[in-house]
């Protein structure tokens, strides 16, 4: 598989009055054409920043991005703003979390979609508008002609998210970055939107990076999963492998706190004790160590590296210790 996007040792740091804070700290992953990668983590784990960094959309003058982001072999970090601007909405499109606020309130849906089409193609105003209606139809908005001349606040949340997706798809992006696209929606609508995103790969040949804090979403949608904690990736694997044999204690915690709707229902849900560390007070070693029930002395001096080949985890627990420890958490 050729890599569509390859991220190596990405770091996003913020200059603050208390010094430099590394919100994303040495993240590396890659994604192939037509692949769906899920990135899972709690709020503040740096998953959104990772994705925003790809298109340089962090928009904070105090943010510094280092490392390497290669898209189809071209380095994006330090790239000219004009080149990045052409990529945005063209080859790489983005869907944001809150459809309520993601659309400009003073323009109609159709106008906002056709605006993007006209930036990246030389379609006429009329043709762009027609294409916008087509897209709205493709994402399953009922009565797309009428929806196109409506203002965002005249649509429901789910309809708006469909409009946002239609906008993102308008220029057939090779890569779609979806930042918690279902978090702000009702549960029934969530399922529909996820279904839609899965279908995109078939209809539009897009690869997708799906950010979520919900493992269930990932299980349903993604081919591969990366789990982030406090600015680092702690585990990454094929979705089936991750769910069958999670390696990292944090992943166990996440799984333990998720009710199983199918399969064996656990007697009770477990929680992860404590809170994620503040970014400026991250421990020297493994960031999860203060909350981990299996801390070893070797966890403390430096964060463990990701080890493994297909299934990687950043944990010192050896394979044979893992099963017993995991059972303590999951089968409690």
């Amino acid at each position: 598989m050729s890599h569509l996007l390859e991220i190596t040792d990405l770091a996003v740091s913020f200059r603050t009055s208390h010094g430099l804070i590394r919100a994303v700290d040495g993240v590396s992953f890659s994604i192939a054409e037509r692949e769906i990668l899920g990135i899972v983590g709690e709020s503040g784990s740096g998953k959104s920043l990772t994705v925003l960094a790809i298109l340089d959309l962090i928009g904070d003058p105090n943010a510094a991005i280092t490392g390497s982001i290669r898209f189809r072999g071209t380095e994006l970090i330090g790239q000219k703003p004009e080149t990045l601007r052409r990529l945005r909405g063209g080859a790489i499109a983005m869907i944001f979390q809150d459809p309520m606020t993601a659309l400009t309130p003073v323009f109609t849906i159709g106008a906002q979609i056709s605006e993007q089409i006209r930036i990246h193609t030389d379609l006429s105003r009329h043709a762009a508008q027609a294409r916008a209606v087509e897209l709205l139809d493709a994402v399953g908005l009922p009565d797309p002609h009428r929806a196109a001349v409506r203002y965002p606040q005249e649509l429901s949340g789910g309809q708006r998210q469909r409009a946002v997706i239609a906008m993102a798809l308008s220029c057939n992006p090779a890569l779609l970055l979806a930042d918690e696209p279902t978090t702000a929606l009702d549960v029934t609508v969530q399922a529909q939107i996820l279904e839609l995103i899965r279908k995109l790969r078939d209809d539009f040949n897009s690869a997708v990076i799906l950010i979520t804090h919900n493992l269930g979403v990932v299980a349903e949608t993604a081919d591969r999963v990366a789990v982030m904690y406090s600015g680092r990736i702690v585990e990454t694997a094929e979705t089936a492998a991750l769910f069958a044999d999670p390696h990292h204690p944090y992943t166990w915690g996440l799984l333990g706190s998720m009710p199983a709707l199918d399969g064996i229902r656990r007697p009770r849900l477990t929680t992860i004790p404590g809170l994620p560390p503040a970014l400026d007070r991250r421990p020297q070693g493994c960031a999860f160590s203060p909350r981990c029930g299996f801390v070893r002395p070797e966890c403390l001096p430096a964060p463990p590296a990701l080890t493994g080949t297909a299934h990687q985890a950043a944990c010192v627990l050896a394979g044979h210790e893992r099963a017993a420890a995991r059972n303590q958490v999951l089968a409690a």
Partner: protein
Amino acid sequence: MAGTIIRRLVHMIAVLFGISVLVFLIFFATPGANPAARIAGKNASPQTVARVERQFGLNRPLPVQYALMMKKIFITRNLTSYVNLGEKVVPQVFKAAPVTLSLVAGAAIIWIVVAIVIGAVAAAFRNSWIDRLLMVLSLIGISMPVFWVGTMANLFTQGIWHHTWLFSWVPPLGYVDFSKSPVLWFKSLLIPWITLAILYIGLYARVLRAALIETMQEDFIRTARAKGLSERQVLLRHALRCSLVSVVTLFGLDFGVLVGGGALLTEVVFGLQGVGYLTYQALETLDLPMIMATVIYASVFVVVSNAVVDILYAAFDPRMRLRR
């Protein structure tokens, strides 16, 4: 939309009624002195005072007095001044209205355009020296009394520098009717326009800059960037369009302050015979019927234009249509 308009018009009529009652009470029911003596003017003879009392029905109950007053101002329009004996007041107000309108409309165009440019430039270069300079200038603009700016403008354009190439085109003070000579009309109003506009340029530029900077934090701005719009397109199309709403609101509010205050003082300083100038002349002689008429008509103008602005606002910003 139709519902919004009707509701706004009903509100407008209620406000007009409230204002007319308020004016009436101020002029006829303020404790302290006999209203007839006030209306008759300084040093009026007892006969005049008695006639005023009869004409305005001052011995009858307040609601009747109010109705008589409104009839004199709006229906028969035969309210007369007792200072300039027998002069009918309302026709004078109508004669003066085009002057005020010319002054206000011209100034409004200047200040809206200039303020948008300044606000957008300051927001685009925020925290740079350009931004700081523009904001200091704006702050000075809102700190200057308009009548003093006008006096200073006269000092330079009519006095000290009148004979230099810079201001030799400035005609003598006073209004020239548009139908008489459009060029002279323009020349005679340009300095007053700028004078009147300065305050509002400062005010609006500051408000617009703040609104733009706040809008630029919104989620939809990130969406616009993610669509591949350039920073300039994001600012001018998406952010500006949303921020203009705050300026339009302000415009509705300021019309009142302007017609009642800024324009009056500007007219006085530049000798433009508008409604404000009439009020001013009446103030010097304490000609109450004249003041009452100008105040009422100016208020009507203000309230009506406020309503128009509000309705335009609803048309302008789709967000407003769903609310209320």
